[in-house]
């Protein structure tokens, strides 16, 4: 050894030592992860078909990459690993699921769950337990939905429990969607691969050899791939391989910079005409179906045909009952699913579920009737996919507030076109200038859609009217804030202020607060939206809160878990009820007991005697007219409702 050292010169030794250190660094920095193309139990990300992935985009567009990276679009779908899993898997037993408790455990960097086999078709008493690896996550903002490897090709299925991020707890999957009680939510092996993939990944290819559920999954081949998990750059800008290759040439790049001409090798949605621009968002934020089974087959093999900049309707049927309720395609959908329209739309065709804002936009007069292209409302009129450097908010704040552009979370969004209202706002609104009643959004985009266990703003810009409440049942903007007032009261103001006709009203609509009618007689969707408004600060300020408890208390016993969840959150927003002891997925008896405790607290408080308004069903002596409540309750719309958010 000494002789060998003597024969080697100092520089050679130095070179060898450097090589050894370099190799050591490379080896220790290598992640132990299995290479993506060797993963067999879940869909995999492969760069192909002209897609290059966001990491390539990052090199030249670091700011855009950074803001996208901080958005919930990126994390819509993630591979489950210690960095992405937010729920506790450390030997946790979750009893709040259908059947026997689900047991979760961590094995190194892997996550595993043991639960009742959802695919079992024998007697439920003999339902076997299965243990599966959790491999994928949907959502990172409000909920984590976990997907497990079914151990059949790359097919995934969903865990029976969902993790609520704000509440930091597991709840049954059936409780986080507005679905009829005891009906459960269907889960099938391959559900993610066939359904979720379309909008939660970039260039997903289902690759079922036969259509999903056309035969038992065990006899199907499932080789699902995506270009990238989550909604990435190329979802909105289109496949970028040509763009990247072309722009390796610096002369071309600088010629483009100096000329200011748009780059024809890539789509910039903001520069498209308003219709095509909005369709880029509409490719996911709309309710759509394939035109026919052959489209589904092509999509399964090659990915969805739509590319940003294309006409969306060329490749898919966008369900839009206000224009195509009688179309062949819609009738075919209704033949297989009679509740297709009711589950997503109000009876006048306005969309009522979240995540489908494109449907709302295209029904808006600001989209349909604008004088110029520049004035046409698009998604980008209010939202931006890349927070600008001038926007003082942090990326997380911007992402958390629906990626609304800087300054567009107030009336500026509307006054950029409707400048006349910016000058004398109160003259138009008949509310104080700084009042929530002078917010354009509150009156023209009220919270009449439902999704993710809350009400969300309608994206159909409308004029407030009580007609919609009388004829369609949709809560109107006035009474979603003035929860303690009747439809007649709102109708009179709308008539006096804006010359809107007063529709015929029945006795209850004239004399009972509209919100109480919606809570007691409405369907589950109306109840959820109204209960959400009871917890909305502007509505509480406008209506007072002392009278709300008995009505929200009624909803604590609602048959729909989602309604109970919203009602409980609204109760907790009332003064004195912040610590409400109530679990929306506890047993019926426990829920009843806790709701009764809260009601007793209210009845014994001075709050219960603050209001004696007849429209709130209080008599002059301050007692609640429970007989009328029961009467309304008997009139409730109990038709089963599943809102397909």
């Amino acid at each position, binding site marked *: 050894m000494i002789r060998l050292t003597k024969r080697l010169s100092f520089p050679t030794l130095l070179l060898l030592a450097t090589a050894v250190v370099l190799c050591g660094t490379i080896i220790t920095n290598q992640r132990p992860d299995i290479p993506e193309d060797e993963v067999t139990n879940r869909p995999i990300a492969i760069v192909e078909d002209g897609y290059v992935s966001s990491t390539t985009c990052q*090199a*030249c*567009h*670091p*700011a*855009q*990459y*950074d803001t996208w990276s901080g958005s919930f679009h990126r994390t819509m779908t993630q591979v489950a690993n210690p960095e992405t899993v937010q729920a506790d898997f450390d030997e946790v037993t979750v009893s709040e699921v259908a059947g026997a408790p689900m047991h979760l455990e961590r094995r190194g960097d892997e996550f595993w769950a043991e639960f009742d086999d959802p695919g079992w078709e024998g007697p439920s008493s003999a339902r076997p337990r299965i243990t599966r690896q959790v491999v994928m996550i949907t959502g990172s903002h409000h909920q984590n939905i976990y997907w497990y490897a079914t151990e059949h090709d790359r097919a995934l299925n969903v865990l029976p429990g969902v993790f609520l991020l704000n509440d930091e707890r597991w709840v049954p999957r059936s409780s986080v969607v507005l679905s009829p009680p005891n009906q459960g939510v269907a889960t099938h092996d391959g559900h993610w691969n066939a359904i979720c993939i379309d909008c939660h990944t970039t260039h997903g290819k289902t690759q079922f050899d036969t259509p999903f559920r056309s035969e038992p999954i065990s006899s199907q081949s499932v080789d699902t791939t995506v270009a990238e998990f989550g909604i990435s750059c190329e979802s909105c800008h289109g496949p970028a391989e040509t763009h990247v290759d072309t722009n390796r040439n*610096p002369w071309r*790049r*600088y010629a483009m*910079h*100096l000329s200011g001409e748009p780059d024809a090798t890539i789509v910039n949605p903001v520069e498209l005409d308003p219709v095509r621009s909005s369709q880029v968002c509409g490719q996911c934020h709309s309710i759509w179906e394939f035109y026919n089974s052959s489209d589904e087959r092509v999509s399964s093999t090659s990915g969805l045909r739509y590319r940003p900049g294309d006409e969306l309707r060329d490749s898919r049927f966008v369900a839009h009952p206000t224009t195509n309720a009688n179309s062949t395609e819609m009738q075919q959908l209704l033949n297989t699913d009679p509740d297709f329209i009711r589950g997503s739309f109000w009876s006048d065709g306005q969309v009522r579920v979240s995540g489908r804002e494109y449907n709302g936009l295209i029904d808006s007069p600001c989209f349909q009737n604008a004088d110029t292209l520049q004035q046409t409302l698009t998604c980008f009129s209010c939202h931006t996919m890349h927070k*600008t*450097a001038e926007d003082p908010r942090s990326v997380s704040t911007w992402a958390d507030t629906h990626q609304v552009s800087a300054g567009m979370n107030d009336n500026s969004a509307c006054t950029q076109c409707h400048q006349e209202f910016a000058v004398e706002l109160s003259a138009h609104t008949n509310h104080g200038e700084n009042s929530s009643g002078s917010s354009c959004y509150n009156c023209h985009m009220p919270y009449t859609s439902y999704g993710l266990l809350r009400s969300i703003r309608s994206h159909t810009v409308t004029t407030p009217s009580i007609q919609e409440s009388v004829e369609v049942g949709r809560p109107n903007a006035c009474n979603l804030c003035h929860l303690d007032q009747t439809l007649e009261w709102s109708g009179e103001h709308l008539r006096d202020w804006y010359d809107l006709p007063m529709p015929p009203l029945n006795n209850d609509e004239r004399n009972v607060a509209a919100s109480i009618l919606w809570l007691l007689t409405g369907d589950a969707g109306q109840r959820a939206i109204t209960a959400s408004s009871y917890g909305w600060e502007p509505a509480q300020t406008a209506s007072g809160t002392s009278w709300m408890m008995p009505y929200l208390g009624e909803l604590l016993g609602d048959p729909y878990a989602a309604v109970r969840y919203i009602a409980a959150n609204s109760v907790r927003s009332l003064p004195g009820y912040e610590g409400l002891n109530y679990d929306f997925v506890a047993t019926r008896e426990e829920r009843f007991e806790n709701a009764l405790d809260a009601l007793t607290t209210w009845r014994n408080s001075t709050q219960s005697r603050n209001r004696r308004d007849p429209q709130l069903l209080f008599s002059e002596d301050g007692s609640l007219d429970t007989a009328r409540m029961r009467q309304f309750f008997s009139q409730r719309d109990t038709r089963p409702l599943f809102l397909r958010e």
Partner: protein
Amino acid sequence: MSAPTKSIDYANRHLRFGWWSLFVFLCLGLTLELFHGFKVASYLDVSNATRRLMWTLAHAHGALLGLIHIATAVVFRVWPDFAVPHRANISVYLLSASITLPGGFFLGGFSFYSGDPGIGIVLAPIGGLCLLLAVFRLASGQLASTNRQQQQ
């Protein structure tokens, strides 16, 4: 009758230029550190990543070129015969490189296009070429000096 050629003290020129160059670009480095200290968004934000890279390169190249000037001056002074025929060219190339190379990076970061530096960056490769020529001349001067010494 032509005017007498003024003898230029290249060693002195590069010594002075080198130290002043070092001073200027160390000042730039200090400014950049202050930008870090005070978290100046127009330098540190991801949207300004190109500026940050360009100005860092300007600082690094400017300071290193200052050191090259000083080293060149020392060589010229210690070895009076070193590369005498090429000293004028070497000097011009080095001075040009010291202005255009860090200057190009600085201007490239002053205004820029997303991931591409501003048009001022065209100066940087010109500066790089000048530096290359200067170093080549110095290297060939070293070679000539060695040959001369061997012949003597």
